[in-house]
């Protein structure tokens, strides 16, 4: 067996595993809580939960449609939001060459390559499988980074593809989507639809129905809040993983670190109009286009802080450089 300089990061793996386990636990709790809320009512009143079970089914169906649609068309949605065009090797020979080589090093199929005309220096990878994956860089990134830094960023993005991050994050977000829909629909139901049908079943039904609806919404809000934090944590761990794999792939953690510093530093000087345009795509980006300070922000953000990312890359650099291997 050949010697390997690859060292896994058990801490990161464990944190990611725990986060995913908790997400699963929240999903289970969510289903159980809904079940009790709806059926406790139905038992007492001989069926008919005032339309709130229908509401749940509709929410799940719409949530499923959003998640599957987002998953299936992730590449098209992201490309059109970024106004990106897929480019051929003739149109962007240098970019294609860099990606060719990274793919040959990593033994992975080559994704499509796209360039976005945006001035924000950024890159993202998306697509439901490695066969239809697309890696996109913005003009701003191409202008600011040299070949080595660009290679580091692309290796990071290709690691996202290898880790199937679109699929993982879609599945993880599914719960949050349903919970949010449930709350929103419960709200509209109370406002517009609820009042008219209340008296139909029995005289006490109105009060109970309102209570059930409130309980369903409460379950939804709690689930949404917890799953939101977990999904963001998972996203940050996936970013650290992609940094790590990308740096090991090229053997140049410092080039990626330098790219991160350049891109993050530039973020502060970008006009607000561009920032707002870039906002919806943040989850797939190399670095998010919005940056604020503070620990609360860290808890909510999709990407780890620059300091954390740099610290990890420094550690990998030391590991690579040590002659002990």
């Amino acid at each position, binding site marked *: 067996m*050949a010697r390997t*300089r690859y060292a896994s990061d058990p801490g990161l793996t464990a944190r*990611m595993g725990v986060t995913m386990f908790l997400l699963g636990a929240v999903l289970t709790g969510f289903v159980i809580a809904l079940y009790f809320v709806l059926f406790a009512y139905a038992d007492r009143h001989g069926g008919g939960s005032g339309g709130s079970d229908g509401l749940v089914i509709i929410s799940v169906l719409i949530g499923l449609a959003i998640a599957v649609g987002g998953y299936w068309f992730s590449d098209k949605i992201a490309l059109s939001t970024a106004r990106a065009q897929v480019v051929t090797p003739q149109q962007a020979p240098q970019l294609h060459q860099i990606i060719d080589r990274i793919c*040959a*090093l990593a033994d992975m199929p080559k994704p499509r390559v796209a360039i976005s005309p945006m001035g924000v220096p950024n890159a993202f990878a998306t697509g439901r499988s490695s066969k239809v994956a697309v890696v996109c860089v913005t003009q701003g990134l191409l202008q600011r980074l040299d070949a080595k830094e660009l290679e580091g960023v692309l290796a990071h993005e290709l690691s996202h593809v290898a*880790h199937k991050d679109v699929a993982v994050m879609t599945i993880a977000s599914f719960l949050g989507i349903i919970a949010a829909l449930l709350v929103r629909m419960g709200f509209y139901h109370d406002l517009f639809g609820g009042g008219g049908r209340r008296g139909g079943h029995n005289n006490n039904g109105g009060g109970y129905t309102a209570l059930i609806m409130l309980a369903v919404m409460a379950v939804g809000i709690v689930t949404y809040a917890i799953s939101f934090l977990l999904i963001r944590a998972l996203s940050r*761990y996936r970013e650290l*993983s992609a940094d790590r794999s990308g740096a090991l792939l090229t053997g140049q953690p410092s080039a990626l670190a330098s790219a991160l510093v350049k891109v993050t530093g530039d973020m502060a000087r970008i006009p607000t109009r561009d920032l707002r345009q870039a906002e919806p795509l943040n989850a797939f980006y190399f670095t998010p286009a919005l940056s604020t300070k503070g620990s609360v922000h860290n808890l909510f953000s999709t990407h780890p802080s620059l300091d954390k990312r740099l610290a990890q890359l420094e550690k990998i650099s030391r590991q690579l450089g040590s*002659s002990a291997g």
Partner: protein
Amino acid sequence: MGFLDALLGRTKPVQPKLDNLFGLPSAAVTLQVATDFRATGTGSVCFRAAEGKAFSDIEHDVRDLLNMGQNKTPVDVSEDSYGFTWLVCHHSPDDVEGLVTDLHAVNSSLQDGGFGPQLLCTIVSFRDGGGRRLGLVYLYKRGTFYPFAPQQGERRDNATELQIRGTLGEDLKIEPDLSRWFPVWGAPGL
């Protein structure tokens, strides 16, 4: 990569496959018999240098090893615009076996140092009577070869490449996925 590795976001660097490289000498004979292409005696190893002293030590050792060998192979070292390092070995045109031995020495030195995943490809160059160039590119991670026939102005001669694929099908493991036949423009020694 397994399901669990994807789920937990771990990618292990791919180790290179070195052994298939030894099919080259017989492939060179086949090319000589079936086509006009002759080996030029030049071959190169391309790898992505890792940062840090560990890698540069190994790189120096490899150069010393090749320069001090019994037949004193001249070795050129260059870095291309993508940051990849090329070690080019020159042998006499009829000594493909010696060339492959030298290339293998480079590979195994890197692999023994733990830097096997940094190996990108090896190219052994051929030329025909009319001066057309042909490189047999060995992809370390796949353990497969593909022909690369560059022409003027970053175009490649696909007809020749496909013809060579047919010719060498029995001698070498040819990369079946055409999308992985990536061009290596301006490869040193080609």
